[in-house]
């Protein structure tokens, strides 16, 4: 039943090449049905912005080849674009705290940082690693390239490192303290 749509949803979500075998495991369906679904999907995506890309026995979704110029331009633009204040702030927190999870960053900034973290990752400024203290979570740390670019051999060389590192640690400890509530409502203090 709607195998084609299910395959589309899975491929879109995973955004990585997947084997037909794996798809048939996930959908608990026979190979024939999977192949049918893939064929229909391929047919349906024929004249669309997203295409089904096949390599060896693996398939994935990608932007349609006829739009490769358009996408290349977007990529270039992304590269040349400076970082936003919000991105720089997030990066600064990651630098001074070193290993920090998303919840802690969100808490310090008072807003959700998912998109920013993703952008910093794509630019190779931070690394996302499995939290050594809890393997179901991730933590972010500055990349080697970033430290090299800044001309510091280790984060301890950052200005006022120990003071700021401590303040961040203390702030994060308040994470569950309900008496710490929003006190500033003026946009001058905006988390932009």
């Amino acid at each position, binding site marked *: 039943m709607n195998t084609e749509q299910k395959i589309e949803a899975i491929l879109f979500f*995973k955004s990585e090449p997947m084997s037909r075998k794996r798809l048939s495991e996930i959908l608990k369906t026979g190979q024939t049905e999977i192949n049918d679904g893939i064929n229909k999907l391929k047919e349906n995506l024929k004249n669309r912005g997203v295409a089904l890309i096949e390599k060896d026995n693996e398939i994935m979704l990608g932007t349609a080849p006829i739009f490769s110029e358009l996408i290349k331009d977007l990529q270039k633009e992304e590269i040349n674009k*400076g970082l936003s204040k919000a991105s720089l*702030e997030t990066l600064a927190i990651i630098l001074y705290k070193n290993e920090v999870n998303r919840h802690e960053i969100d808490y310090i900034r008072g807003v959700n940082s998912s998109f920013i973290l993703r952008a910093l990752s*794509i630019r190779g400024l931070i690394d996302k690693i499995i939290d050594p203290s809890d393997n179901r979570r991730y933590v972010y740390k500055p990349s080697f390239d970033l430290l090299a*670019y800044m001309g*510091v051999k280790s984060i301890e060389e950052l200005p006022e490192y120990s003071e700021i590192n401590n303040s*961040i640690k203390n702030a994060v400890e308040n994470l569950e303290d309900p008496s*710490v509530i929003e006190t500033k409502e003026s946009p001058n203090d905006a988390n932009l």
Partner: protein
Amino acid sequence: MENQAYTIKTVNFEGPFVVLLNLIEERKLFINEISLARVTEDYLKYVNNLQLDKNRLAGWQAAEIASFIVVAATLILIKSKSLLPNLNLTLEEESDIKDLEDRLKIFELYSRLANNIKINFGKNIIFAPLERKNEILAFLPDEQITARNMMTFARGALDKIPQKVFLPKVEVKKVISIEEMIDRLTKRIENSLKFNFKDFSGKAETKEERVVVIVGFLAMLELVRQGILHAVQENNFADIIIKKQEAETM
């Protein structure tokens, strides 16, 4: 452990409208002055118990306590009006009553809508794609990333973290004015009782029964009044209130 309990309590803090709405819904009533008068005593009992329950109050902000008392004040007006039809309320008092009724209706609407959210949240999630593994585009720094700038940004982020909040003065004022209002109303009810005894139009109830109801209500008010003083003092929020308490005991 202690800290954890404290958190859960405040996150789940249910305000006065929740309590009031529950009382009305338990009786399957519509929101109007009559139903509000009917639930007043139960609400006051609730607030009184709240004030005696130090464990529950421990994690609360003064403003949260005050929010219960503000509603109590208006309910007392409504109840007094229902007991004593000849009690003349000021325009401001009348508008407080209308306001509470209207606000409760709006709150009822959103509580119902909140239930839609409860039912649907997380049920049929729309997912954004996972991060692409091959997406990293080499290393792309930005000239704004300098050690000095990073320090400034880190400091800036820390400065924005909200600080612990202290009792806002306006809430203290509200508490005092409610206490005064209860005093004033008590006097008005007592006077009505003395001078307007003939005004009680006993329908189903006899005059005597009505008087008993009113006396009971006055006793209740006294309890609430003491409860307010007690709660405020227990929480040790403001010098001004404690002074007042001392002045009274002298």
